[in-house]
């Protein structure tokens, strides 16, 4: 029950940040692929840097253990990525 409420609450801020960064707009997503508006990349890289720093510090202090990290299987990851890009450029979500 606790995790359910936490999931909805965290999901709320996830959606909120995506909306405020403009990732819900077609032109924001597609213009990254046209190199005319890099807001999406800035957004992703900032969140990566913040989360990485926080998580590795917390692990260093022994507060958290990492969950299962996404598996690496190069062909699958790459093929999935290539197909994903087609969909992303078409839809812009």
């Amino acid at each position, binding site marked *: 029950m606790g*995790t359910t409420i936490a*999931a*909805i609450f*965290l*999901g*709320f*801020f*996830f*959606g*909120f*940040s*995506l*909306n*405020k*960064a*403009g990732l819900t707009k*077609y*032109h924001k997503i*597609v213009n*990254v*692929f*046209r190199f005319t508006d890099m*807001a*999406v990349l*800035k*957004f*992703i890289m*900032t*969140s*990566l*840097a*913040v*989360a*990485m720093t*926080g*998580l590795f510090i*917390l692990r260093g202090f022994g507060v*958290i253990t*990492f*969950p299962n*990290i*996404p598996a*690496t*299987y190069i062909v699958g*990851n*790459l*093929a*999935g*990525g*290539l*197909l*994903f*890009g*087609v*969909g*992303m*450029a*078409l839809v*812009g*979500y």
Partner: protein
Amino acid sequence: MKFILNYIRKETWSPYVAGILLGVVGILVVLVANSLLGASGGFENLAGMLGKWVAPEAFDNLYFNFIMPPGITFGVFLLIGTFFGGMVGAATSKTLQWGKKDAVNGDPQWKRIFGPQTWKRWVLAFIGAIFMEYAAGIAGGCTSGLVISGGMLLAPSAFIFMGGFFASGILTTLLIYRRRY
């Protein structure tokens, strides 16, 4: 205080501020639930549940039994929250277009490239979403589940995936836009 309220009402934040918010959410997800952020996983859990109910034989395979077990998981609740978060985000900047005429097809750049018809938007969104969800199934995550949550744990798969979708995304956009690129 007034400054913060005014900033929340802005339609588009600086990507750095929004990115910090997402980064903090990413940390909290690991801290509170020992889980990862993700959007596509929740849809797959739901689809698996629906499939097991409609066609149990077709869905009795390795993928839906072990990799993506069906059920109302953490990811599904995350999706519910994401939906309302996005809605409230739009409502705070007064850009929420619930039930308005141009709500689905309101992007001027889309209209310039594909034409003004709304059905085109629906059809292309449907086709593109099939591509995205299927690809996320192959790769093990989408932009949030693999690039952001995998990347913040420094998983190599995240960066392979990112390279892949940027390469094909640029190529697809080139093909669609041609001279207007």
